[in-house]
């Protein structure tokens, strides 16, 4: 029994060590609006800020029924090398919205993700 338990410990620890390599890339630091938060319908942009510089990326925002409320496909903020931004249409209604992003790290690593937020008048 003791030997069996020791045998089980080896692959488990190996798994723990190898999984660590996935961390060597940029992470989302913050978003605007923040994930799960409520903002005003008057906001003009959505941004995603990463912990490191990004090479390029896209950002799209959709509302109820998949209505696209962002303009264009977004891109790196010219004022901040680690931020993605996309302008929003002015004709937005109160409701739930989803922002979906893709980003390419300087080393070519591609990532994507999404977050939801609410808008109210």
């Amino acid at each position, binding site marked *: 029994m*003791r030997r069996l338990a020791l045998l089980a410990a080896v692959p488990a620890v190996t798994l723990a060590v190898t999984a660590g390599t996935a961390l060597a890339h940029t992470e989302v630091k913050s978003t605007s609006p923040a994930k799960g938060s409520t903002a005003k319908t008057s906001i003009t942009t959505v941004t995603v800020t990463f912990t490191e510089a990004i090479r390029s990326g896209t950002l799209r925002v959709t509302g109820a029924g998949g209505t696209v409320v962002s303009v264009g496909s977004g891109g790196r903020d010219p004022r901040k090398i680690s931020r993605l931004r996309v302008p929003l249409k002015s004709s937005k209604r109160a409701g739930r919205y989803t922002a979906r992003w893709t980003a390419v790290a*300087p080393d070519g690593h591609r990532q994507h993700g999404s977050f939801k937020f609410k808008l109210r008048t």
Partner: protein
Amino acid sequence: MGRSIARAAAVLAVAGWAAVAALPAQAHVQMSPTEAAPGDPVKFELLVPGESDAHTTDVALQIPTGVLPFSFEDQPGWKRTLEHADDGSIATVRWRGRLASDGFVRFAFLAATPEQEGDLVWKAVQRYDDGKEAAWIGPPDSDNPAAVTRVSAAARRQNAGGEGESAAPAAGGARPATPVQESADDGGGSSGTLGIVLGGAGLVLGAAALAVALRRRPRAVA
């Protein structure tokens, strides 16, 4: 016949050595590669020869717009500092140390090249311990030329330190597709989430298994 080939090879080898050894005599700060593919992680190497009786103590390299350094090789005896531009990008890399008056040093780093083709002009300023400085910022045919890397789709892709893409030359400038790493949807999104969860699970399992093993172990003889 075989002997003459061997002799020719020996001569070529010596000539090659002479060519390599002659490089530092030009005493210009150089950057390799001189050609790189657009949007590619590339290993750049700055070659800094000493060229006076004094010792080089400070080398500052301006990073051209659109170049994104992401990893630096440690150079023993040299300390590296980064200066950032207003947008947060790396504007200048500075190395401080002490170079023998007849020595040279190489500073290697990995950086993504811009997506657009064009020339990257590497302006560098080299300072000596006698207060003199050499500014390698001039045009290619000047006495103090800045090193240039031409970004061209015809250049071989390196994918240095990158992932997903093969380092093989891309035919016709076509870029191989990079697999997209999955990330938890609606998680504020980052590819590390799965790794953290798996890692955490692994640690817990490992600890549990060890605990069982230790508890089952017979008492050690005192």
